[in-house]
């Protein structure tokens, strides 16, 4: 028995010793580099290049990038277009793809654990953790280096301004069109009813009324609707209508003082107009529970006659409509002019910015090499590889236009991923041969409308309260908008909703934007 007791005690002691040793081992391992770039520890989640900072001349530069994708499966990076691109730029690209639905979380974790690749796509650019990380110096300030690169320095000054933090440029923005909004409609319905294209909101109202009540598809049934809408009215319905009535784009500045768009009388006019459409049944009564896809289907199936969307989406919409009805004529409406003339709201101008973390881009030399890679991406040949693929294999050049040799689905699979990497503004891309006329018309409209685009004055400015309380403030006022349109709230109620918004932090937001504006000037 004695022997057994002694054995037991020794046993327990050995077990505890092992446990302690394991804990100490883990702690020791962690004490090293939180950045995880220890070459003896090949288990960092994002692989930094073995030769980072020291790419020998002639040897391909290794760059690790994190980006997102919107399709169910991640882009294929082994196809010939990727290979060609890496050949052209003499790089070896190490892509980490994260689905859009998980991208924000992954970025916050990567930021917090300092586990970043060399080029990081930042989508939610005004999110607090990101802004904090930028301010505490986690990323290189690339502004001063841009002048060394011919193509990067040509990028639009205005859009760079939109992406500045505290007046400094930290990232390369991915340009997107500024004035995209456009109205798609059924021209055959218009002509059958003998109407003219509307030029102002009142005439548009007449057209919508006729589309709903006067049986434009001539089938003897009352099954048509003027305007189809869906639940996210902030995306298209409100920006379109409020721009016609002269309301500002999200915020207005006068004498350095800020005002929110819904505080203006023009905005109320726009809401009343929509309410009129709702009351008379010219807009689908259940728009609050309708999905975007259902709205598109309503149009393509010939249930609605007008769709407030984007100019470059008209061609796809037309093709969808033709599938159901080969006689339909889908076209883009001209701009609607309200009391202040033709106005189109400017979009953000960029989607996502590429940032360069200091933890993975260790030397200035390496930063310049990476910037050189992005600069090279703006050359015409690289642009076309990213837009079209490999010449001869995926497309060929006919009369200076590109003729696609592969099916559209294959092309999307080919170029979706490349699109995420590109920072060009599409102006140098080869135009498609035999491109859909409506598509060309839409793109021309986008360019023309840039001249009358109304910018959002708060872009590039900061307000701490806005970053924190944006969702709550939005909820207060967006609920009120819907209630007003559907008749549950009257004007007095609307005014009190605005007051509630101001009280819940809106007043502070306005003051902070004004401050930020004053500082940046």
């Amino acid at each position, binding site marked *: 028995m004695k022997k057994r007791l002694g054995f037991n005690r020794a046993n327990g002691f050995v077990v505890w010793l092992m446990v302690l040793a394991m804990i100490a081992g883990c702690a020791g*391992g962690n004490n090293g580099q939180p950045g995880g770039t220890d070459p003896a520890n090949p288990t960092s989640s994002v692989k930094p290049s073995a030769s980072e900072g020291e790419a020998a001349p002639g040897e391909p530069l290794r760059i690790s990038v994190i980006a997102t994708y919107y399709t169910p499966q991640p882009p294929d990076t082994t196809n010939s277009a990727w290979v060609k691109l890496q050949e052209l730029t003499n790089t070896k690209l190490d892509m980490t793809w994260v689905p859009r639905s998980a991208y924000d979380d992954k970025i916050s*974790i990567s930021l917090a*654990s300092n586990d970043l690749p060399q080029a990081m796509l930042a989508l939610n650019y005004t999110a607090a953790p990101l802004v904090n990380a930028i301010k505490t110096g986690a990323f290189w300030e690339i502004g001063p280096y841009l002048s060394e690169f011919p193509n990067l320095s040509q990028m639009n000054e205005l859009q760079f301004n939109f992406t500045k933090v505290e007046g400094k440029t930290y990232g390369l923005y991915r340009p997107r069109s500024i004035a995209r909004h456009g109205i798609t409609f059924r021209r055959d319905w218009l002509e059958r009813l003998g109407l003219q294209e509307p030029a102002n909101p009142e005439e548009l109202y007449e057209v919508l009324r006729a589309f709903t009540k006067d049986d434009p598809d001539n089938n003897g049934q009352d099954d048509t609707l003027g305007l189809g809408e869906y639940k996210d009215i902030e995306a298209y319905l409100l920006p379109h209508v409020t721009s016609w009535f002269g309301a500002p784009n999200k915020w207005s500045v006068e004498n350095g003082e800020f005002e929110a768009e819904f505080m203006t009388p023009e905005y109320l006019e726009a809401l009343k107009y929509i309410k009129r459409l709702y009351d008379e049944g010219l807009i689908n009564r259940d728009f609050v529970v309708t999905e975007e*896809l259902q709205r598109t289907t309503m149009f393509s199936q010939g249930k609605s006659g007008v769709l407030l969307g984007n100019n470059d989406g008209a061609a796809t919409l037309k093709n969808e409509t033709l599938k159901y009805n080969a006689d339909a004529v889908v076209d883009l409406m001209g701009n609607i002019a309200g009391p202040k003339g033709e106005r189109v709201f400017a979009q953000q101008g960029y989607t996502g910015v590429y940032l360069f973390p200091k933890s993975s881009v260790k030397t200035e030399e390496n930063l310049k090499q990476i910037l050189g890679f992005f600069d090279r991406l703006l050359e015409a040949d690289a642009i076309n590889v990213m837009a079209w693929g490999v010449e001869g294999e995926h497309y060929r050049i006919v009369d200076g236009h590109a003729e696609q040799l592969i099916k559209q689905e294959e092309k999307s699979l080919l170029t979706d991923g490349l699109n995420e990497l590109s920072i060009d503004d599409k102006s140098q891309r080869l135009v498609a041969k035999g491109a859909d006329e409506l598509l060309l018309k839409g793109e021309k409209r986008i360019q023309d409308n840039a001249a009358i685009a109304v910018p959002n004055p708060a872009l590039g400015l900061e307000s701490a309260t806005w970053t924190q309380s944006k969702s709550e403030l939005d909820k207060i006022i967006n609920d009120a908008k819907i209630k007003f349109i559907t008749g549950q709230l009257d004007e007095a109620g609307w005014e009190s909703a605005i007051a509630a918004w101001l009280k819940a932090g809106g007043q502070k937001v306005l003051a902070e934007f004004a401050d930020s504006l004053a500082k940046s000037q």
Partner: protein
Amino acid sequence: MTTMLRRTSVSGLIFDISNYLFLAAMALVTLLPFVHIAAGSFATSAEVLGSKFLLFPKTFSLEAYRFIFSEPTLLRSIGATAWITIAGTVINMAMTALMAYPLSRNIKGKRPIMALIVFTLLFSGGMIPSFFVVKGLGLLNTYWALWLPVAINPFYLIILINFFRQLPVDYEESAKMDGGSDPYILWKIIIPLSLPAMATFSLFYAVAHWNTFFNAIIYINDSAKWPIQVLLRQIVIMSSGGIGDVSYSTEAQYVVPPQTIKMAVIVVATLPIIAVYPFLQKYFAQGMLLGSVKG
């Protein structure tokens, strides 16, 4: 004995009928949404978009299933999920049982260990510190990052400890007298007698593994290793209006997958784990201990 079925009183009858009606209504409320999804997955996308609530498709069509199985992604993610679930559950049950058994008998150091377990029940490190630990152990981008940190759920562990404790000590004593070692006793006697508990916890662990999404995104970067919930979430979120930020409205140039695809993926992602339940029913049988200990 025979009076159970004979309800001659009217109030009794009314009570029974309303009971059945209520339960049937509850069952329908739970079942109908799933039927809607399953029906939608077998319909054409035009029909799904046109109707409000589909219970039975007019035209039976397999186009959604054909589409999702045409790419290897779905099958690969199902394979990954199945592997994560099976291996994970085995690891979970092995470790939980191995830890519960000694703690259910009086051993030295039982109190401090139990205190530590209860501590983890109440507090957890949080997302970032856990990430650091997993990274420090070199588990990133492997499936072990999904198995080890969640290997033992303290709540289930405590329940299992109590379950083991209530098994009579007589079994062990008689086994020890016949020369059985502790592992032998655990494997041959204790576990077979605890099948209801083992089956229940296996099911809980399995479902948790089947639903792995967030951990997979954080710890695993290789998209070939992702489980099916990642794919499902991406499809569902992307096709129901996206994230609602600027990025989505400018990037949605691709064709949004139609409703039927979404529904088909939901069915494929949930059916296997639901199908496991009937197979484990027999292990929930009661009364296995009756009569084995006399006196």
